[in-house]
């Protein structure tokens, strides 16, 4: 009984995991090799869906999605790092308040942030109005909204708290003594940053980057609402599962995105592993 006790204890969560994650995952993986007829799915093994998912327009959209997702992940990670650095090392007693402010934005909701940015970036939005009032522009800058840039800004805003937290968690483990020792030994600020802080925050940085990347790569709501004519892979997957009723192709596209994400995860880990403390 004692040996079996752990199994018994994890059985409920295991059952939930298998039922709600593993089983659907396996089912859709199988489905990705099937094909769609008008209102039915034929269980005929073929690789056509995977071919369609990585060629022609889907390839082009995939590359655009990758560019947007990497841009979001880089921007979010850099800003998250700076914010966490200020909270940990510069803000003193105000650090906790700053951290609280960052966390409070999580309560704002995803759609609310999107519509907030529409209000800021639109033709009659806060930014264009301010620029016109200051006499810096004559006509509103249309490219601020309904563009890839608007998608990057909106997603970055949404994901920033998720980047700050893991990086800040890593920074808390850095002792002030280590940094003082480095400075005493003549290290310049950038050497402290590159030689101690960044390498010691590798886990947090990788987590922040990947979290932002994975969410941005799979998102399809933000591009629809602020991306104008931008189409991302998520939009095409939604199209297959919705209007097209082509679940096999949608499943294949999803697994292509998943595989790409695994490559990015592996590459990020490998790159950051090279950045060791000096």
């Amino acid at each position, binding site marked *: 009984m004692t040996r079996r006790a752990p199994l018994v204890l994890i059985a409920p969560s295991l059952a939930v995991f298998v039922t709600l994650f593993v089983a659907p995952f396996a089912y859709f993986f199988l489905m990705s090799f099937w094909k769609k007829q008008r209102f039915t799915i034929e269980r005929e093994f073929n690789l056509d869906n995977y071919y369609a998912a990585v060629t022609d327009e889907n390839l082009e959209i995939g590359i655009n999605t990758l560019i947007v997702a990497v841009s979001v992940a880089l921007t979010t990670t850099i800003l998250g790092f700076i914010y966490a650095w200020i909270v940990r090392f510069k803000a003193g007693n105000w650090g906790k308040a700053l951290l609280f402010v960052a966390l409070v934005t999580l309560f704002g909701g995803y759609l609310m942030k999107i519509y907030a940015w529409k209000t800021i970036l639109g*033709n009659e939005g806060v930014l264009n109005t301010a620029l016109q009032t200051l006499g810096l522009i004559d006509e509103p800058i249309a490219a601020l909204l*309904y563009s890839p840039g608007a998608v990057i800004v909106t997603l970055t805003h949404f994901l920033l708290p998720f980047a700050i937290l893991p990086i800040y968690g890593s920074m808390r483990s850095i002792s002030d003594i280590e940094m003082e020792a480095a400075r005493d030994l003549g290290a310049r600020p950038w050497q402290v940053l590159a030689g101690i802080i960044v390498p010691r925050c590798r886990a947090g940085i990788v987590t922040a980057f990947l979290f932002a990347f994975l969410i941005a790569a799979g998102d399809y709501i933000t591009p*629809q609402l602020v991306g*104008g*004519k931008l189409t991302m892979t998520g939009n095409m997957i939604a199209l297959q599962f919705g*209007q097209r*009723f082509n679940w096999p192709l949608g499943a294949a596209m999803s697994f292509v995105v998943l595989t790409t994400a695994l490559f990015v995860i592996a590459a990020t880990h490998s790159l950051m592993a090279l950045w060791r403390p000096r």
Partner: protein
Amino acid sequence: MQRVRGSGLIRVRSMMQLSRRQFGLGAAAMGGLAAAGLPRRARAATDVTFLGWQGYDEGLFVDDFLAENGISLNTTYIGNNDEIVTKLASGGLGSIDIVTPYMGYIPLLAESGLVQPIDESKVPNLASVMPIFRNDPNISVDGVLYGVPFTWGSAPMMYNPEATGGEPQSWMDLFKPEFEGKVAMMDDPLGNLMLAALIATDAESATDLTHEQLAAAVDFLIKVKSVSRVVAVSWGDMADSLARGDVVITFSGWETIKKFAADLGTRIEYTYPQEGTFAWLDNYCIATDAPNLEEDYLLCNKIISVESQVMIGTELLQGIVSQDAVAALDPEAASLYPYDNMDAFGQKATFFRFPPLDDSSGLATFDDWLEEYERFKTA
């Protein structure tokens, strides 16, 4: 109709303010029923199964009609018209009573034996339905009526008169240099392709397209996209873009956007350009082997009653079909649709049947449409 365009439902669902209103209305209706306690008549409630768009049952809750007739509505909401076909064809017959397809689907449903003919003598309110809707050829098969039309709309061009300097006359006005980057369109495959076919091809019917005509329609859509700023995902999104001044003119639209934009503080008008447009008409149909035929006819008759139609026209802001109800609409709701000149509307807007589902005719099938539409999505 597919997703957006034949479904006032998607339209309704896509408007946050409407959803709230609907919710409040539904809650009020349900509260009223609850407060009323048991039905007034001493009879057990009959469970009637309703399969349709969210909101399309609300006209039935406008008064005590359901309680008085001992009807308990079991509603299942759909996300697209295909769900009606698949649910009826996969075991739903015998348990489902009412379905609410767009008129383009009715011939398919009737020919497949999934819905039954309407006994017009049991729907006396049909007499007040405007001829343009009552006589729509899509809702009758071989002269037999299969659907009770109850709500409609079309795809006009929306424009900001201050920005356009007047009423545009043609869909080709979208390509005027002054509108470049100020055009909005909807992400609506069926609606967009029908409208593009109407404008850019010589097809006799916008849904009977050869593969070449379909390709030409998509080419036209890509051209419109090149001058567009927004491909909106909901009518609320389109109204929002117009109201904020991000766009000033649209390819496709919905009459009710005028009201949504007015609520946001911007005057937006609509027009039916000279090339014409398409219209949609949603119906109550009775499923084959429906278990509660008597109650089903009561519901079909109720949804086109004056009180239900007025509710649909004023609360859901959708087009209504009853002449008597139009006379009872308040001026604001009546101004949303061209009720005062339906003949002129009929000359500009056409109720097209659904594209072919199989390739036996040699024409492009609906699946071809969706596949070709991806070219527009990725352009």
